[in-house]
């Protein structure tokens, strides 16, 4: 009998050892050679309704499902707008106060309105969805009881995309039951949106529980020209508006979606547009279980789009044009699994179960080798697996800001400005990047990050208040110089010249008390100590910190901004007086108000990119460098690791609808997974043997004792 058991166990182990699917494969065996992309998400998306969604973890999904009028070219840099659902990228028509057309080069102050006429492509179909079946528009309680998920609807249908669907979504931005993050901002631009908001509020108050049919409420600034054309009228001249039309806020939504999802029985079961999007894009969401997994599959009704035929010079040798002109998307399905911790994600990537990965600080040394000259290379372990490293600088700026309303560090007095300059010199940003970012960052010279028009490289780009140009590269001014400037500011040796009391500065942060934060704060204190200043870290929770920022009671703080769109206006507006955090609730966290800067900003925001605009930007950046409302900062470098079966990767930090461009070789992946994950059984047998051997002395001892009792 014992022999039979042993044989059975041995057979099982043999079968397990010989199977083509590794034992640690977290996916079903039948998926092994399927054309599926595997990725992860750490935080469940809150909104997939394009009127609400504004987070990077949501746009990963919405950008593949919804199609906006425009998109960014996948390969071209600088980022270039091209049509997506639209036929062309339109030129705005400028109008005066009485709606008479103005010439293209009309000065901004004469332009009362800008008119955008957008013509969309015909024959674009929505994904199959029950919302398009009339039979599901007014379901009875009994019918609704049988529905627990969207897949329970037996019938689906579709219809053609029309211009009205784009208009419908613009109206949804001010729907009284939706809190669109851009409603307030867009109401300032789109003619009639503010009035529509009030009208809808009253309509909803009169019959709160019924479906609010937005088609019945006209929006004066947005009109349908014909089935495939619509016009948007905005206040004044705002060239950046086209970029907004490449964001999911302006994706089309069919009115049927709102009607279908307004049924209470569905809302009670979490079946809403926020969880089950309806789009025309290359993919559609088929599984939405943010507690575990989100699955997107190819939209069978997708109108088709071809891989770009042109790109940058280096794209062809990099193989990025190998699929030029081929129909997209290339991947059949994308599965995103919830992973709360970094360690499992990293290990699964190394085992081949995720196709791409970022590099956490814990795994940096395992993945990257930095040469003596500072060059970045992959470690041997990564190279052996054929993993590729692709890097890029993100259009993001993280900065240490001064509250310009603060009586000590703020304001425009010579003393305050020199104090800020001394601090800016003392904080060694390059060291911070080396220690805390593993070298993954570019020290800030101005508010505009690399890759965005207006960014200046080389000697012209450095901040002369903080750096000198030595040996063809920027060199931070010496600490001695900073001390001298500090003395000129009225704080010799870090003490007030008149009273002799030490100057204490405060850094407000919502940071945790974790080891990384502690190390960073200790480092920051040392930077201030270099010029004999005392720094006190005021570590509060997130809410208190936000409260201080709103009220302008913080003194110094760290803040950041990631580009919404690739235009310098999207960074320089962070320093515009009209956007001050205090009093205006804007994004100018330092509350920096300089009339000269503001005047140039008003001029620059309406200009086309070109030498004239560059000149204005240079003047603005020069004012910024002189005033130094931001002491220091950096633009992060993004390091991405990709397996050799994953192709057509070009980092794009502005566009998110990139899933359609990438392709996989599932066969190579399957072979690699098998090779890398062969089960190793001998330690299990050895451990079992040790345990079994350990029992023997116990049995002997027990028998001896029992025998002794009998005797």
């Amino acid at each position, binding site marked *: 009998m014992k022999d039979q058991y042993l044989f059975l166990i041995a057979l099982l182990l043999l079968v397990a050892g010989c199977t083509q699917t*590794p*034992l*640690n*494969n*977290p996916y*079903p065996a039948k998926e092994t050679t399927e054309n599926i992309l595997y990725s992860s998400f750490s935080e469940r998306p*809150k*909104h997939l309704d394009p009127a609400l969604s*504004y*987070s990077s973890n949501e746009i990963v999904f919405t950008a593949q499902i919804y199609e906006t009028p425009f998109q960014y070219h996948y390969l071209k840099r600088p980022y270039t707008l091209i049509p997506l659902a639209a036929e062309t990228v339109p030129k705005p028509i400028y109008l005066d106060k009485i709606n008479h057309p103005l010439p293209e080069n009309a000065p901004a102050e004469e332009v009362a309105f800008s008119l955008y006429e957008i013509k969309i492509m015909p024959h674009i179909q929505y994904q199959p969805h029950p919302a398009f079946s009339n039979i599901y528009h007014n379901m009875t309680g009994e019918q609704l009881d049988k529905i627990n998920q969207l897949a329970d609807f037996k019938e689906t249908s579709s219809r053609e995309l029309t211009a009205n669907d784009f208009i419908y979504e613009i109206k949804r931005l001010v729907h*009284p*039951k939706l*809190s*669109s*993050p*851009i*409603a*307030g*901002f867009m109401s300032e631009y789109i003619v009639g949106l503010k009035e529509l908001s009030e009208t809808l509020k009253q309509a909803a108050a009169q019959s709160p529980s019924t479906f609010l049919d937005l088609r019945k409420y006209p929006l004066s600034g947005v009109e349908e020209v014909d089935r495939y054309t619509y016009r948007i009228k905005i206040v004044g001249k705002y060239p950046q508006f086209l970029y907004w039309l490449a964001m999911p806020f302006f994706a089309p939504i069919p009115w049927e979606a709102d009607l279908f999802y307004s049924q209470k029985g569905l*809302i*009670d*079961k*979490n079946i*809403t547009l*926020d*969880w089950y999007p309806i789009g025309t894009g290359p993919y559609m969401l088929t599984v939405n*279980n943010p*507690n*575990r997994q989100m699955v997107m599959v190819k939209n069978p009704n997708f109108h088709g789009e071809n891989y770009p035929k042109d790109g940058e010079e280096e794209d062809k040798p990099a193989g990025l044009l190998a699929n030029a002109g081929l129909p997209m998307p290339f991947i059949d399905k994308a599965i995103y*699994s*919830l*992973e*709360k*911790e970094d*360690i*499992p994600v990293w*290990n*699964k990537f*190394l*085992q081949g179960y995720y196709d791409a990965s970022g590099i956490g600080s814990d795994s940096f040394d395992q993945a990257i080798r930095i040469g003596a000259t500072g060059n970045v290379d992959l470690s041997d372990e990564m190279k052996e697996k054929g993993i590729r490293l692709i890097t890029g600088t993100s259009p993001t700026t993280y900065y240490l800001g001064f509250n310009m309303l603060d009586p000590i560090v703020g304001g425009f007095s010579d003393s305050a400005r020199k104090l800020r300059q001394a601090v800016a010199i003392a904080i060694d940003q390059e060291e911070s990047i080396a220690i805390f970012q593993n070298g993954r960052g570019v020290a800030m010279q101005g508010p505009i990050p690399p890759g965005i028009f207006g960014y200046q490289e080389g000697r012209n780009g450095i901040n002369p208040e903080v750096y000198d140009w030595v040996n063809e590269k920027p060199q931070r001014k010496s600490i001695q110089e900073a001390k001298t400037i500090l003395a000129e500011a009225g704080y010799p040796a870090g003490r007030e010249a008149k009273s002799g009391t030490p100057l204490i500065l405060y850094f407000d942060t919502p940071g945790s008390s974790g080891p990384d934060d502690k190390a960073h704060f200790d480092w920051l204190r040392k930077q201030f100590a270099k010029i004999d200043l005392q720094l006190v870290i005021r570590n509060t*929770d*997130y*809410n208190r910190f*936000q*409260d201080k920022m709103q009220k302008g009671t913080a003194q110094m703080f760290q803040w950041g901004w990631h580009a*919404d769109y690739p235009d310098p206006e999207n960074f320089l507006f962070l320093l515009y007086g009209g956007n001050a955090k205090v009093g205006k*609730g804007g*994004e100018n966290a330092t509350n920096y108000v300089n009339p000269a800067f503001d005047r140039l900003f008003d001029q620059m925001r309406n200009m086309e990119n070109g030498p004239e605009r560059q000149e204005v930007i240079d003047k603005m950046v020069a004012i910024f460098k002189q005033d130094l409302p931001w002491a220091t900062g950096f633009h992060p470098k993004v390091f991405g690791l990709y397996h050799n079966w994953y192709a057509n990767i070009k980092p794009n930090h502005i566009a998110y609808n990139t899933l359609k461009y990438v392709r996989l070789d599932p066969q190579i992946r399957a072979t690699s997974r098998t090779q890398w*994950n*062969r*089960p*190793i*059984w001998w330690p*299990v047998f050895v451990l079992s043997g040790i345990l079994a051997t350990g029992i023997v*002395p*116990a049995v002997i*001892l*027990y028998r001896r*004792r*029992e025998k002794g009792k009998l005797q």
Partner: protein
Amino acid sequence: MIAPMTAYILRRLLYTFPILVGINLLTFTLFFVVNTPNDMARLHLGVKRVTPEAIDKWKREHGYNKPLLVNRQEEGKRKFTETIFFDKSVSLFLFDFGHADDGRDIGRDIQERMGPSLAIAVPELIVGLLINITAAMGLTLFRATYIDYWGVVIAVAMMSISFLFYIIGGQFLISKLLHLVPISGFDEGVMMVKFLILPTIIGLLYGVGSGTRWYRTLFLEEIGKDYVRTARAKGLSEVIVLFRHVLRNAAIPILTGVVVLLPLLFLGALLTESFFGIPGLGSYTIDAINSQDFGIVRAMVFLGSALYIVGLILTDIMYAWADPRVRLGG
């Protein structure tokens, strides 16, 4: 005439009500001391371009535009009913948990997440009990020998190591080096098993030290009693004495200790679920605290309290059932 046991249960259930109201009030106060409705709105709407109008609108939509506990603008009982506390609390007692700030039905989320939590907790509890009791019996059998001594040393060592170490070490050894099970993930049906092996083994390893020591103490207390001496005098072997007599008498504290845990198994384990990507209830509360979702926080605290009270009542009942000397009532 109601049986004493039924009367006892009814009385305990009635006591539950004020306890739950108190816990709810405490949760409410603590939550809103740290998070104001404005903070909640700001966090929910994101960090970019949030206007005061958007904050007001969010509060109105989510029912956070009323005063917290007392509405001084209202008269009579409306002073207390037209408040956030009243709005958000009454439905709880009907086990209607309402919706999370992102619109999801909390009751459905809890139902969905309870399954995965139980899938880990139940096998861990049952297998853990068997292993711990067997190991404790073994040590008791060899009490005062080098086996007992080294067994206790190993148990103390095992219980002194952080759970996080077991998780990371286990994932590294069993999944990364030996490639025997997936490092994390979850699936439904039979496919679930391969994802449960590693977290269950790790949970068992972590619990075996403290469990063995605890049961060993119970058995050692019993082993010196008269009935054990009588059993030995009858000539029974030590194994039979332990497994037939000592185990049966030690069953009361074991049983009561286990029963109190049963309802809490539904609540899941935070670290295990986070590291193994198991969509249970363990991480649900922490995620809600991080995202300042009061709806989920109050629902989970309420559920936890209610289940704990149920556990205590069950323990009392089990105690009376297992030990005829214990009578409930009075």
